[in-house]
Structures are given as C-alpha cells and as structure tokens.
C-alpha cells in the first residue's frame, strides 16, 4: 500500500496536494518559489516596505524633514534602516534542519528573495520620494538600502533571522551619531554625499558579503527562536 492510495482513500488528495506538477517544469519552480516566499512572510514584508515608503512620502509632503543642516539625513536613514531590518527578518526559516537537508534550490531562493526585496525597497522608497526633494536623491537610497541590508543579512547569519533587525538598528544609531557629529568615514556611508565612490564601494562590499553569506549558509537557526 502506498501513501498516495491512503490519501486517495481519505479523500484528502484533492484538497491538500491538488495537481502535483512534474518536477522540473516551470509550474514546479513557481510553486517552489511561492511556498518559499510564503514561508518567509514576504507578502507581509512587502506591506511593511510599502508602509516605509508612505511614511517617507508623508515626511516630504508635510515637511517633517528639515530643509538644511545635518538633520536632513536623519529620517531618510531611519526609513532605509527600517526597510533593511524588514528584509533581514525575512531570512528567518520556520523549518530549520529538514529544509536545509532537502532544499536543493535553497541558496538560489535565499539570494533571489534578498536581492528582489532590496530592489523593491529601493524602488518603493524612490517612488515615495518622487516629485519631491529627497536629500541625497535616489543614488543615496540605493547605496544606503543596499549597504544596511548587507548588515542585516550578516546579522541574520550571525545571530539568527528573528533578531537580525538588531544589526541595521545598531548601524542606524551609529549613523545618526555620525551625522550629528560630522564623522566622515566611508564605512558610515549615510554621512557621505551620494556621488562618493568610497562610500558606495563600502556599501556594495557589505551588501555582497551579506548576500554571499546568506546565500551559502542561510540565517542561523537558534533553539530560542
């Protein structure tokens, strides 16, 4: 007796495993992506990213951002760190070891999800700032979101997906302090102008490092989570 017959007898097959696709087909691939995205709560993450974009829009519309001085960078960096935190938290897996042991496509899915969410976050924040003067412009958003997301992904690999938001938030506090005290190291890239090559390189390096680690190893699994 096979398990398939058991499911058929119980009448559950049509409800639980309807239309099993052939492995290797496009449908199987899309189903895998869909299940992975659902397990990482990506739809909720997209909602949070839209929320950050709306807050940026409101800040620009109602002049919550000062027009000059060091405080102009404060709110945009806060929202960029917020989006990076959300992306980092999506790396948390509820399945743990079984998924690691059996998921052949897992590294691609991890990389694809992190990369796509980063791109979407940049797009949404840029859209939120459209037709308004955002200090630093879109280049700043690309650099800051990518770099801080890299920090979030590294945090996820080190302390686990659930608490990975701590890394971007710690970097946020450091950046706010650097903005107020006029520090100029390229490793604190939000303090540098958007055309600064050194800051862009540092942010890109951190993002590549984070994406590589999370692709290869995934978020750390902690029993406490």
């Amino acid at each position, binding site marked *: 007796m096979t398990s398939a017959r058991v499911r058929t007898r119980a009448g559950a097959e049509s409800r639980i495993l309807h239309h099993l696709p052939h492995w290797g087909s496009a449908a199987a691939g899309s189903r895998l992506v869909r299940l992975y995205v659902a397990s990482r709560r990506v739809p909720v993450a997209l909602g949070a990213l839209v929320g950050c974009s709306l807050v940026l829009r409101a800040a620009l519309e109602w002049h*919550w951002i000062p027009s000059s001085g060091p405080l102009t960078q404060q709110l945009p960096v806060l929202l960029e760190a917020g989006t990076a935190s*959300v992306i980092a938290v999506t790396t948390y897996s509820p399945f743990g070891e079984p998924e690691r042991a059996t998921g052949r496509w897992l590294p691609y899915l991890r990389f694809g999800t992190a990369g796509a969410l980063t791109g979407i976050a940049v797009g949404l924040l840029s859209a939120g700032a459209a037709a308004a003067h955002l200090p630093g412009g879109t280049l700043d958003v690309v650099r800051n979101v990518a770099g801080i997301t890299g920090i979030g992904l590294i945090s996820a690999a080190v302390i686990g997906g659930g608490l990975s*938001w701590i890394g971007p938030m710690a970097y946020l506090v450091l950046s706010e302090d650097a903005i107020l005290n006029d520090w100029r190291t390229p490793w604190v890239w939000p303090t540098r102008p958007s055309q600064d090559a050194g800051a862009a390189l540092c942010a890109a390096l951190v993002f590549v490092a984070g994406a590589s680690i999370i692709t290869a190893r995934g978020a750390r699994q902690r029993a406490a989570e």
Partner: protein
Amino acid sequence: MTSVAVPLRAQSERVGPTRRARLLRLELRHSTMIWLLPLLGALFYFDAFRTAAGYPPFWFVRSSVILNHLVPDFSLFVAGVAAWTGSRDGRRETVDLVTMAAQPRCATALASFAATTSWTLAAFLGCVAVLYGATATQASWGGPPWWPVAAGAAVLCAFCALGFAAGLLLPGRFTAPLAALVTFLVLIVAFRVVIHESHPTFALLSPMNSVPHGDAGVFFHYFPDLYIVQIMFFAGIAIAVLGGLGLATASGSRIVWRTAAVVTALGLAAACTGVGLAGTARVEADGVVIPAVHDAASDRPIAYTPVCQQRAIPVCVQPAFRAYLPDLVATLNPLIHQFAGLPGAPVRVEQSSSSTIPELSVALSTTEIDTLVGASATLTGNPLVLHLALTELPSQSEPPSSQPLAIEQAAFVDAFIGPAEGTLGDPAQAAIEAALLHSASSLPTPAAQAANRFAALAPNVQRAWLASHLPALRAGHIALAQIP
C-alpha cells in the same frame, strides 16, 4: 500505608509567591536583553559617554546626555526586544497552552515584561553609574542630579511596555523591527512636528530636549518641574499599557479584569495630567517652569564661597569653575594690567550666572540641541565690580590652549570701554576695543585705521591716553580722528 490529607488550596497559596519568583528568575535567565547588553554598552560609550566627555565637567550639563543620547539609543532596542519577548507565545503558537496553564496568562506575561524591563533598567543604571563616576572624578563642586535619571527610567519603561503590548497583541516576526522603527520615529519626528503646532510646549514632553547652558544648576537650582511632568506622562503610559495588557489577558478572571481596568484608568489619568501640565509650561533661563508643580524654594540662588586669585584686580569664580580659574586669569591678565587704577576700573572681577544675560532667554529654544556660545560682562556697584558670566567653557579633557577664552576678553573690554547699558557703541569705542583685542580687521576702514594707530602705541602711552580720555570715550564724546 497511611495517607496524609493536605488541603491542595492551602498548599497552592503557600508556594504561590515562590512560583512567581521562580518564573521571574527563569525569565531573567532567558531574557533576550542579556545578549544585547554588550551592544548597549558599546553604543553608550560611542554616543552618550563621548558626548558627555566633550562637555565641561559640571553635573547638570553632563547629565543632559542621559535624556538626549542614552535614552533614545536604548529606547529602540528596548521596544524591539520587548516586542520580540511579548510575541513569543504567539510566534510559537503556544497561546492556548499558556492560557490553560496553572499560572494565569497575565502572570506569565507580567513576568516576561518584568524580566525585560529589569535588564533594561540594570543596563541603564549601569551606564548612568559609569557616567556619574567619570564626572565625579572631574567635577569640583555639586552632586549628581537624579531627576534626569528618574525621567529616563520612566521613558524606558514606557517604550518597554508599548513594545511588549505590540508583540503580545500583534505577534509576528516583523513586530520587533517595526516596534523599534516606530519608537525612533516617535522620538525624532513626532515631537519635532508638535513644535510647529499651535501648542509647542507639548514638545517639552520629548525626552530629547535642549542642552542646558554651561552654568545651569550652578548658581540656581535647575527646576525639576519638567522632569516631574515627563515622569508623570511616561510612567502613566507604561501603567496604562500594562493595565490594558491585563484586560487583554485576564482569561475570564473578574478580579484580574477589574484590577486591570483600575490600573489602566490610573495610568491614563497620569498621562493626560502630564500632557495638560506640559501645556502650561513656560521656558525660563534656569529651566522650565510648570506652575502646578513648581517649588518656589528652587528660585533662590545657591549659596557658595567664591574661589579667588589675587592680582591687580582679584578674579573670583564659583567653586565649580575652580579648574578654569588659572586659564581665565591668564586670559584677563594683560587687560587687568592695562586697566588697573584707571578711572572707572573695577576693584574685583566676579563670576555671575549666565541666566542674568537678557540674550539668553531669547536664544533658548525648547528643543534646540546646541550649546549657547558667549560671555557677558557688566560693571555695577560702588566700588565697581565687573560681573562676568561664562556660558560656554572648553571641556577639561582638552588642553586649555585649544580653546582660548577670547570671548571673555571681549566681554571684559566691552564692559569697560563700551557704551552705557542699552546704547549702541560708537566708532571710537569700537576702534579702541579692537586695538586692545588685536582684532582691527573686523572693522570698517576708518575705524580699522584708528585701531591700528592705537595698537601701534607703546602700552604705557596707551594707558596714559586712556587715563585722560576714558570718561569721554565711555560717554561717546571722542571722534575717530582724536585717537592717537
């Protein structure tokens, strides 16, 4: 076999407190906040401690970093971790198991909250101890102010409660980062937005307020009014949120529900009272006055014995400024030699409170995070005493030569040469002042030429000319052409 009958109810009542203590101990041992302590320590060092080290070693000025730096840095992590802890049962889908356990759910939730808050307050108080310990080794007068510490603890408890409630009511992996994000958003945006509304005094409730002027809390008691109202507001929020959590997790117990309702009402009343009192605040040079909680005794000046250094004209300062006295005397010495014995010269230079400077009340802003720069001097009394107010001083950690007290020199000369109070100086006065201060380049050409002429004279010739012309110069009766 003999059976012993033990009433179960009595046993349960006897071990109840022990069980609760054990639950709290378990939560304390497994709290996520423990793992965050090194990070919080590092942030404290890089932000709050280094900022405080840049301020002069006066207790009140140094203590301003508690609310301006330490509390905001801690708040977002505290809210995030509290949300993470509060969402634990929801994330693990064990709410049903916990609800039907021996302990009521509100008791277990309270233990989790208490553990997170305890670690938070322990970290906060540890950082305050380090800050105050370092200040104690440098400050020469006064003692640590505790109101900012109490207000900071109330703010942290409030954000901890709000984060925990968010986690408990909306469990999910994104609750913690969003709680942290919203906390920082509230701290840096919400209170700033309120300033532009019709009642900007509500912005005073923000823990991130202005840095007090250099001698705040030295000559007069700094008013605790604002701290009292901040504590009332934030502690009220914390209590109301905890009461609300009790309502949400009462699990059918009528006594718990009623108690929670009363606690919520009390918390809301305290928070609303805080908001109402903040609306009556007015900003003065020595702090914020809120009439309903203001103690008239704090208006009286603090008694002290000045520390003096004897020169041709003695220079005296408040004991808190003892470390700056040699630098101040060295700065004023050339001028003292120039002016001693001249008609209208002071017999003594005395430090006075900067809150007596009229410009200070204009420059003070409720939320401006900046230090007022400047000094002011006035000649009063008979015999004449020059009252010198110092509003900003270099940090003790920096060498004195890095920030010369040039502004005090200018104030000294201005008080001696300058016009009578309330009138504008004339070109001759400006030229003589610039000549004595060697700053003629800042003047327009004719006055600069006169200043350069006077500066080129030998000191004894300058002094002789001042001795004969000073009353006329001060009265504004000297023309530029009359300056030698």
